[in-house]
């Protein structure tokens, strides 16, 4: 495998990790339900509701 491919894969892994941290910080800023990782029924309903509005 060439150096380039190695670098691309490593970058992809690190990039995904960075994106996940960014996402969780952003989500947590919303606080409350958003900060929680559980996909409960209330959250599902909220999602359906907001997608209907848009």
């Amino acid at each position, binding site marked *: 495998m060439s150096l380039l491919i190695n670098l691309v894969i*490593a970058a992809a*892994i690190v990039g995904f990790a960075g994106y996940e941290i960014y996402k*969780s*910080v952003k989500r947590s800023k*919303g606080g409350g339900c958003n900060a929680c*990782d*559980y996909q409960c029924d209330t959250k599902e309903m909220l999602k359906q509701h907001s997608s209907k509005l848009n």
Partner: protein
Amino acid sequence: MATVALLGNPNTGKTTLFNELTDKYAYVGNWTGVTVDKKMGTLRHTKIAVVDLPGVYSLNPITKDESVAIEYLLHGDPDLILNVTNASQLKRNLLLTIELLEFGTPVIIALNMIDDLNRTNVTYDLPTLAQRLHCQLKATNARNKKGVAQLRDDLVASLTELPPAAALHITYPTLVEQGITQAAKKLAAEHGMTPDFARWLTIQFMNQNQTIRAYAQAHDLKPLLQSAPFYDAQNFENQIFTTRLTFIEDTLAAARRQNTPTSQSELTNQIDRWVTHPLLGLPIFVVIFYLMFKLSFDWIGTPLSDGLNALVSGPISHGANSLLTSLGALPFLKSLIVDGVIAGVGGVLTFMPQIFVLFACISILEDSGYMARAALVTDRLMQMIGLNGKSFIPLIIGFGCNVTGIMATRTIEQPKERLITTLISPFMSCSARLPIYSLFVAAFFARNQALVVLSIYFLGIAVALIMAKVYQLVFKVKGNSNFMIELPQYHLPRPDIILQGTWDKGKGFVKKAGTIIFAGTVLIWLLSNLSFHGPVTDIDQSFAADLGRWLLPVFAPLGVGSWEIVSALLTGIMAKEVISSSMIILFHFTGRTALVATFANLFTPLSAYALLVFILLYIPCFSTLATIKAETGSTKWTIYSAVSSFIIAYGLAFLIYQIGSLFI
């Protein structure tokens, strides 16, 4: 599309019935207050929408979650109401039924838990009840699916040819009746309401229903607003209640039949004789928790977990390594994947069996009806602390995840009590902290794993309660809370409900493995392989080492002797699971077996225990802090929560280590 609304008292099996009627699964528990918001589903094999509403005793809400029902009736416009009742407590259940029958939407009553009634020496003649209440009644037992298919067919049939909406008219005392007639007439004339709705609205208004009073204000319903002082002065609320009760008693007396009971009704009493014993109740509560940890750490969880660990650190790790080598991957990529992602994320995932066994145990307790008893036997203690029995529920939920625990404090009416419960919630040991306990108890307390974990959990509860008392004194809260709880009949837990409940609680953990745990693992790998001068091969030169060594003096008084532990603790603020994966990576292992062996050189049992106490109590994870911020609406309280928990954790771990060192 037609809509059916499920309404009924708490703990009548509404949610179980909802799950049987619809294709969608919702969370079930044999305790009051499981449903805090409405849930939607569709009736099996049809397009009919079904709405499950939180259990209410009446349409007059006491807490915020109870107002969902009345709001739904006002704005949701269901085509049919399915009133779920507990057949063995009809007298009390019918109070709500009357309010629904007066509303005018067609009602079908499900006499649920009919098996419980059949165990008593009373039964009711359904045709007589149906005739007196002017609506259909069906006997069901949702737990063993009895009568559910029939009920489903009846719902469909009723919806295709809707029975004429005929509201129930009870004759109230003359003065009340005059008031109703006058107001309803004006409402119909001036505001264009149907006579039934006007009558219902007037009765609810008289009944001090705050939601309806607000509705009257908002719509400027003068006929009602002008008469409010008169209604209240004459105590119409009480007269309405008494009339309804008399009506119910007459109805039930007419339908009552003698029954030869099946002999099983004593079972609940037999169990309760011991489980809620005044003196033995608390010890039994502790023993039940001990057995839970025994199952998770000794009997089932750990053996499975060890098997998974052998798989991850053996075949999977080696396989990935040789595969990457054969593909020609460079050493840094191999290290990132094998030593980083597989060791770290895989290492945390191997704790899944222990966490799932614990969640299964909690689900069994919920489904059987024990939770209400747990609240009962601990109530005296809660009263001493000045907390309401309602605070107990968010705390137990906090064992799963502190964020959900804090969200559950919304059911507490008192703002100060709610703030206190929010502040003490992070001390409850959430499931994310379990992997790290598991690592340490395997290393130092192999014989008493369950006991040590139990002591950590109870220490968390004790700190939470002591802090609650301190806050009570500081905020000068008067402990005048009411505690009333129903003790439902015990149920034999149903396997599918347990399975579903376990998955509901555990899926967050699995999902986090792919997101924040993965991210934290990669981050700590980067920190341990980079320095100011670029990549390093010797981990002792890395960022992680610099950071850990810099803070090491702070932690030395707690018996922490290596920088790896300090760095791992820092990453724990992202998510507590990351502490475990960080340790695996920082100590350079492919799995946790070797890690456990290394601990033996770094810790004594005493310093290990002090560290566990510190991990239990120190700064809540980022999500929890964010939730405290959102729920209290105050940055001050959020910072306070982080700082105070660090100080408490540090102080307690310090005391344990220093005082313990004198003796050992």
